[in-house]
């Protein structure tokens, strides 16, 4: 199914990105090309094939788990806020939500 400009607008909305009319004209055919290309996977027989999820190697899978729930030192409020575009009263400050 080809990707249209309407689809791209909807996707941009889902991805929380504004998109200009010029970008729309460029992206829609490019994304349609790429999606058409990846659809070659439809020819692969994949019934009963397990998906590759997790640590890839058996050894990596063994460590890919939650750590013990023990408190360890962290950045702290001051450092965590140091790069904020706007901080106030020990919090990240953002424009109004509603």
């Amino acid at each position, binding site marked *: 199914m080809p*990707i249209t400009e309407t*689809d*791209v607008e909807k*996707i*941009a909305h*889902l*991805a*929380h*990105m*504004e*998109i*200009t009319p010029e*970008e729309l004209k*460029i*992206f829609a055919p*490019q*994304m349609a*090309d*790429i*999606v058409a*290309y*990846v*659809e*070659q*996977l*439809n020819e*692969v027989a*994949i019934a009963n*094939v*397990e*998906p*590759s*999820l997790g*640590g*890839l*190697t058996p*050894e*990596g899978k*063994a*460590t*890919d*788990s*939650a*750590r013990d729930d023990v408190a360890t030192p962290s*950045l702290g409020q001051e*450092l*965590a806020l*140091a*790069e*904020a*575009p*706007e901080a106030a009263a020990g919090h*990240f400050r*953002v*424009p*109004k*939500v*509603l």
Partner: protein
Amino acid sequence: MTPVNDDIEALKNRISSGETTARAVVESSVDAAEKLNEPLNAFLQIDRNGAMTRAEEIDKSLWSQNGDGTSVPALAGIPVAIKDNICVRGMQTSCGSRILGDYHPPYNATVIDRLLAAGAVLVGKTNCDEFAMGSSNENSAFGPVKNPWDTSRVPGGSSGGSAAAVAAGIVPIALGSDTGGSVRQPAALCGVVGLKPTYGRNSRYGLVAFASSLDQVGIFGRNTKDVARVLGIVSGRDTHDATTAAVPVPNYTAGLTNDANDLKGARIGFPRSLFGDGLDTEVRASVEAVVDVYRDLGAEVVDVELPNAKYSIAVYYIIATAEASSNLARFDGARYGYRAKDAPELRQMYRKTREEGFGAEVKRRIMLGTYVLSAGYYEAYYGKAQQVRSLLKEDFSKAFESCDAIITPTSPTPAFLIGEKSDDPLAMYLNDIYTVTANLAGIPGISVPCGLSSNRLPIGFQLLGAYWSEPTLFKLAHAYEMARPFTERPPICVDN
């Protein structure tokens, strides 16, 4: 006084013996970085003050040891460059993006802590494709890196600045990241060695995430032995990254001696089907000549099949974009980095920040990833891609039953012209045909220079190995280097 002709062990020994100083070595590196940044644009930040202060500290600590060379750290005084998507406290981490701009992370990546503990001196942060998305470095918000062999051409990507810095002799070692070939491909295009380790070998803590199941920190060097030495320093289990494996770190340089070129008993896999359409004839001839060298060194060359490799680009661009769309959701203007001005309401602030902060390729990939993960499409794209990924892993497992390593070209062509492919994302993606397989399967790969094209552009070959087979890859790559040393230098280089 330039580090360009020494390997890092010899350079460290000259520093620790007092023949030269860390200060002199680091100063020449910083001078070169500054001087060559005009033609190359390889660095986004050069930390002269920080590097010089640290070099002087290292000299002092070496002198206070009274010549007790045994306790000198392995990288004492060695200048190193770091890709600008790896966090270094006190330096910027822009990821080549406006959305991070001059973000200064409050912590070091684990690989950085380990380099520093070994005495390395960080000279600066290198330019890259935005968020490591690209094969040419043209996607950096701060302008493309130029190839030191021909400044009208790309250095490859996404770790192009790191590759160019090593190729031009500015530093002997640089770190990059490799999600689909972003260390190996620029290494090939710039004529240096580039390693992508086994997934889980190096910690990703402090590497800004692009596609978490594919990303690995990789290493550039002028020779295999230097790369092996640095892998031994940075790799291993890290409690900050649950995907690092508890696999012991061997002595990677053991056996890499100057006479180590007898490969009797070694088996090199030759995947004939990957040497067909789309491969530049000079690259093919060059890599086939490498196969002959391996035969001459005593290795057996066996045919191997990777029947699902032809799907790897399709699988990769589903999985990588899906993971990117999720990872890059964090760039929202709320906690760090760029925030769009004058947005009256939170959602508009997110949308404007991301519109203004991200470049075209990053937007395209976030949207593709959002699409393949969206309701109704997940199974058709992401689910299926993860299944074909399993088939590709099986292809490699089977192939490694009959060989120790598989040889391929690293890139289908030598360096292409800046602008040549920048309007056609799909054509650009097809550059990665030989490299994405290693990331999808999680196996290690190394690119090694094997000559120049008729117009004097470097060509590289790639060796792929089974999980944790870095020692085998190093042994094979090193043996080739001993048999056919690559001594050419680019026109833009410290010595010139």
